[in-house]
């Protein structure tokens, strides 16, 4: 049985405008999946139903064998955490320290352990020097890092990152992705919503959403061989493959070049 088992999910904010249409999705323990899709396709809505922030109109969500409902939502939120698209939606504390602590407090972590974790994760995201600042005083990318630290510190089974690194500089993003990869190797299940194909290619499996439906899913190797599907879904191939495909159209793509571009697109 999959760790996350979503079956036939339907959701609408307004009865006349269905947003999620019969969405089914399985995620195994320890998997890393990336969700891609055009603006307004329903990615964040799907993420919010998974943590019980929105109630689906029909369908079921089972996480670690527990069916999500009003009664089980708090139990489920001990297993699955989300970093929001806009970190402001996550901040409640007076200081950065309070904010990182908040989630752990809710889970009942002992005080001493909490203090240690705050330092540890603040360091990991490069925000240790800012612990006494107010969240409102941070730059956009700094806010994103604090939001990520707060969720990491809760040490949950699954983390959903909803465009959580969109405002990081290239170095910070790379460092963070390396760290997330390490956590993944240690068993963390990751659902990463992103518009950045390079970031998505860190995942084992890509899930492509279009107009509230799962349009296509599969391994990156599988999907990258379908350039037309990417275009249809409003997405973009990695630059290496854009180049490769353009050369191919002009009959100028040697086997070696094709291989080289393919490998460089995947080796991030």
């Amino acid at each position, binding site marked *: 049985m999959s760790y996350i088992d979503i079956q036939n999910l339907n959701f609408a*904010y307004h009865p006349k405008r269905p947003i999620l249409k019969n969405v089914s999705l399985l995620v195994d323990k320890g998997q890393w999946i990336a969700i891609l*899709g*055009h*603006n*307004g396709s329903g990615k*964040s809505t799907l993420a919010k139903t998974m943590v019980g922030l929105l109630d689906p109109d029909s369908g079921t969500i089972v996480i670690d064998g527990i069916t999500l409902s009003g009664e089980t939502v708090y139990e489920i939120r001990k297993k699955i955490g989300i970093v929001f*698209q*806009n970190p*402001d939606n996550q901040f409640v504390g007076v200081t950065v320290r309070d904010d990182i602590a908040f989630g752990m407090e809710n889970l009942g972590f002992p005080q001493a352990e909490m203090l240690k974790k705050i330092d540890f994760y603040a360091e990991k995201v490069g925000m240790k020097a800012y612990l*006494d600042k107010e969240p409102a*005083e*941070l*730059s*956009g*990318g*700094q806010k*994103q*890092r604090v939001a990520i630290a707060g969720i990491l510190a809760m040490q949950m089974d699954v983390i959903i990152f909803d*465009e959580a690194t*969109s*405002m*990081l*500089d*290239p*170095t*910070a*993003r790379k460092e963070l992705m390396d760290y997330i990869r390490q956590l993944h190797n240690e068993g963390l299940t990751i659902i990463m919503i992103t*518009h950045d*194909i390079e970031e998505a290619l860190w995942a084992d499996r890509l899930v492509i959403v279009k107009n509230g439906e799962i349009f296509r899913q599969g391994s990156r190797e599988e999907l990258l061989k379908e350039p037309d599907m990417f275009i249809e879904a*409003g*997405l*973009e191939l*990695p*630059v*290496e493959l*854009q*180049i490769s495909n*353009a*050369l191919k159209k*002009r009959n*100028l793509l*040697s086997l*070696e*070049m094709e291989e*080289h*571009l393919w490998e*460089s697109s995947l080796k991030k």
Partner: protein
Amino acid sequence: MGIQFKEVSFQYPSWGKQMFEAIKNVSLTINDKDEFIALVGETGSGKSTLAQHMNALIFPTSGTVEIFGISVTAKRDKKIKYNTLRQRVGLVFQFPEYQLFEETVEKDIMFGPKNFKVPEEKAREMAKKALNMVGLSDKYLTRNPFNLSGGEKKRVSIAGILAMDPDILILDEPTSGLDPVGKNMLMRLFQEIQEKTGKTIVIITHDMDLVYEYTNRVLVLSNGILEYDGTPNHLFHRDDISKWHLDYPTTITVLKSIKDKFHYDIDIYQKNVNDAVNTIAKAVQL
């Protein structure tokens, strides 16, 4: 004319805590014509803070920002209508949530023009046009901006500034949150505006591919200091840009790997996919 920074420093109020200087002695000139500028640097380096000086949303702690001939200094001058500067220099915030406030998308986009005395009907027309320019249909006019997806909010906040038709546009991370189609569409839109009207555009971004493909000048901030002011080409020819937390555009990285592997004699400094393809094509056909 345009915008001149003269030895500008800025400290956020610190309320007894240790003083923190977000901008340090920055001097620079932004022409009001024909510039497409990228403002880049590490998260927290001061980009958004600097951008907010460009339309007098914040006032320097020391030094002067001259905006279309009006001096903005630490001391506010009651005779100056700083508000008019915000019509001439339009700023799109990093987080659209800070900009959106009306109850419908239409009212939100109309706010700017109406505020600057454009008649109601004309403002409504401008709003609709601006909304379509950012890739959203008329259906969105009656939506509540707070109930939109992240990327939709971003588009509406950009439409709000386009409708004001300012002389200089400053866009703080305009493509974060946009899907690839939206990103390319908006970058081409900015380019078209820049080329057709000659208006200067400044974008803050972490996307080096966009910097290289679209802009003709780069400002690099690091810890509040302006470390670099020059062309993208010159910047990406340097080998020390990682000290500013920057990266190379993908075209350069890919072409370099091809050059090394296949020993082609090619110029790896190509600004977009098309030029990169042509460069490889030429080498292959030799």
